[in-house]
């Protein structure tokens, strides 16, 4: 049994269905890189934008974040971050934890925490109004 390794059917046993397992790994690899590219672009752009329009009061800060473009691109940043963190944490936990029960418990905690974070940040950023 391989928790977190997405063992679908009994054919996955001992890598018999190696092709689909490889393509799942490839998909994960791609998601990790696409989310990284988006975060890199966002952080650089946001840092430049923030440095050139640094808000000096609550109202200015809130006005900046209430802008739909800023709010949506920032939400996308956090969703990329949480997805990226899920793949990274999953890889780390699967490398160091080999007992199925502990692995499943921690992966569940991490997964639900990240899902909660996604809902939390959407609630915050998508309801900001001036």
């Amino acid at each position, binding site marked *: 049994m391989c928790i977190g390794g997405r063992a679908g059917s009994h054919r996955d046993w001992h890598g018999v269905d190696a092709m689909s397992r490889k393509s799942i790994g490839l998909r994960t690899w791609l998601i990790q890189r696409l989310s990284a590219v988006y975060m890199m672009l966002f952080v650089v752009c946001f840092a430049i934008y923030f440095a050139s329009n640094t808000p000096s009061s*609550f109202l200015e*800060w809130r006005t900046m974040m209430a802008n739909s473009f800023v709010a949506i691109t920032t939400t996308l940043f956090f969703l990329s971050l949480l997805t990226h963190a899920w793949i990274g944490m999953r890889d780390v936990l699967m490398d160091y934890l080999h007992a199925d029960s502990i692995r499943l418990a921690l992966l569940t905690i991490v997964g639900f925490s990240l899902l909660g974070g996604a809902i939390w940040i959407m609630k915050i950023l998508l309801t900001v109004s001036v």
Partner: protein
Amino acid sequence: MENKKRPVFLDLTRIDMPVMAVLSFAHRITGVLMFISIPVAIYLLGLSLSSPQGYETVTSLFDSGLFRLGILILLWCFSHHFFAGIRYFMLDLDIGVDVINGRRSAWCVLGAGLAVTVIGMVLML
């Protein structure tokens, strides 16, 4: 069956680790540290946007030395992870895969991460 009696040598203090290994390990540590700080970041972002009092609370946190230290550690985590990520992109594109260039780029990543952290430290002083 896996041979459970096979010799395993994993004394990390005695293995001579190349700089690429240090980099790879640092990539993981910085990632996990940033993962742990995500809820704090979301909480502070929400607080700063919630009310003028919340905004004041968050901005006044920067007066605390401990908070600044935390920000600096996270800045190192972020910049290291960022540059190491660019290095992994280049390796994916078959750029600098050989030992000499791999070693060179690994040192560059370590240096760039520390450089950004020092710049941040100077800006915060």
